[in-house]
């Protein structure tokens, strides 16, 4: 059994947009090396939580501690050090449209490491191999399909082998086969490189395929309504919202609204 060391600790996080409370004092831990999923229907605050975890939004109160440092209250230098430890795959992949895939992936590598130019090219080739995009080095993002963009975005997110990878709806807009391939890729990378993965999703199949542990957010209490192993929650949870979610039941204003 691996040692349960927390890499992300969220303590009493409150998130507000104006006067609307989106998340009300939520706390949870993500342990090193695990695949952690944040579930919830639309409007439950999943994306807001993600934006707080990666430092795009400042919490109203509470702490988000990434690998020992509070991302919400720290100086510039620490903040940049934290950013080096994380990689994010955005929902729309967010590749830079004016650069080829190779240039997209090479950008963080040549900026933050001292590798010579030829080694950078080699490494980029390896990264793209890893996500099965060999041969597409010189393509522009507008010339490839949605699934390929996701994979290229993943290659860029892991360019510097971050400790923690965040995924925003990785399987959104992908066909089942591509989506399953992406899931395999996530599991493989987690196993071989030991990267901690935080996935924000509502894709049931992919949750069962990859997640070790999940938390589920719900609009009703603006916080976490369930935490634990997804299979266990599906079979044993008594919470009606959790049941609905895992069994894809339509509910009166409960599951997805």
């Amino acid at each position, binding site marked *: 059994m691996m040692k349960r060391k927390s890499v992300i600790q969220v303590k009493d996080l409150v998130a507000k947009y104006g006067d609307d409370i989106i998340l009300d004092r939520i706390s949870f831990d993500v342990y090193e090396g695990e695949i952690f999923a944040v579930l919830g229907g639309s409007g439950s605050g999943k994306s807001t939580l993600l934006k707080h975890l990666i430092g795009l939004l400042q919490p109203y109160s509470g702490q988000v501690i990434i690998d020992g440092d509070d991302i919400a209250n720290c100086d510039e230098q620490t903040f940049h050090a934290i950013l080096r430890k994380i990689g994010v795959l955005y929902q729309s992949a967010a590749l830079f*449209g*004016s650069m080829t895939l*190779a240039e997209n992936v090479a950008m963080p590598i040549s900026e933050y*490491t*001292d*590798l*010579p130019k030829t*080694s950078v*090219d*080699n*490494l980029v*080739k*390896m*990264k793209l*191999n*890893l996500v099965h995009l060999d041969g597409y*080095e*010189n393509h*522009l*993002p*507008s010339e490839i399909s949605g699934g390929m963009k996701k994979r290229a975005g993943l290659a860029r997110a892991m360019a*510097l*082998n971050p400790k923690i990878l965040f995924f925003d709806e990785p399987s959104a807009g992908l066909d089942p086969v591509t989506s399953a391939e992406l899931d395999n890729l996530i599991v*493989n990378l987690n*196993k*071989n*490189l030991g990267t901690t993965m935080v996935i924000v999703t509502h894709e049931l199949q992919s949750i069962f395929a990859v997640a070790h542990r999940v938390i589920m957010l719900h609009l009703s209490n603006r916080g976490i309504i369930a935490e634990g192993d997804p299979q266990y929650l599906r079979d044993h949870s008594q919470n009606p919202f959790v049941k609905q979610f895992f069994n894809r039941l339509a509910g009166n204003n409960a599951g997805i609204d």
Partner: protein
Amino acid sequence: MRNSEDLQSCRYEVSQSEDGAVSLRIQGRMDASNAGRMIEGIKFLLKDRPPSSLTVDLEKVTYLDDFGALVLVELKSLMTGAKDKLYITNASNKVEDVLSILNFDTLGQGISFTKKPSPNMFTRLGEGVFRQASDLTFTFTFIGSVCLSLLYVCLHPKSLRTNDTFLSMEKIGVDALPIVGLISFLLGLIMAFMSSVQLRQFGANIYVASLVSLAMVRELGPIMTAIIVAGRSGSAFAAEIGTMKISEEIDALFTMGFDPTRFLVVPKIVASVIVVPFLTLFSNLFAILGGLVVGVFMLELTANAYVAQTIKTLTLFDVFWGFLKSGAFALLITMVGCLRGFQVKGGAVGVGRATTSAVVSSIFLIILSDSIFAIILRYWG
């Protein structure tokens, strides 16, 4: 002979036997923090004595990621010239796994990003001609569809999106009033000041009023206003429609049965053609006011005399002519802005290019059509 070096969390040791076989022992972590220095260090050590074979012992490697694998790839490509090869020994299961998901065996051979060769002169010329031709076709199609939409709106006035039109009027006209007023006021000030330097010598101070008002109402008022509108609104049209194009909103309009031209372009054209001439009137007014300030405070003219001279100089035709011209300029600016928006391809870069091009083409067309107006007036009036 032996050589070794310590890096942050990694240590490597090179030894060479009599027959030229080199063995390299690596301990610790092989990751992003030390890969660069390790590659350069080992290359440097091996430069003077090209090995006949290279054995890499990974027994004591505790962690290896793709940066670590990169070091091995570099060594492998270093050995491709030699007669013997690279051997990797004692790799732990974990390291083996990483190497296998990276397809280590196939890596390192002839890696090069073969850039697409740039085509020769004739190909480029041909491509350029075709591109221009298709741009031109698109432009004419666009003008045609705008004309049809305008005609349709004339025949069915209820189909005009009035809310959008009023909103555009506010954005193009009302919001631009302060800056147009300020710039015109200063322009009038400058013109009066510069002309007074000359006219004073002849005691013809009163003609400053004629000069400012005539120049402004006939030429500079419409042009200045049009240039400001091109910079403020023409660019905004291009950026707005361009962003809608790349985020598939235009496609959505189309499949919902809306005509994108009628929906997006017509309200803007109607709004700008109505509002820009009035903006021009304000611009004239403020410029005359600027001239008046100079006239009163520097040339000892009375405000009454200045205004009387201005009224004496201007004919109704001058004002009407300026009015007409600025309406035409407004039409050009809006058409060009929207056209550039619809022409956007690709992503953020495309939107930027379209915005620049909208402003530059508008200003060019404003000046060009102003010359045409001048010629028409010369032979007609």
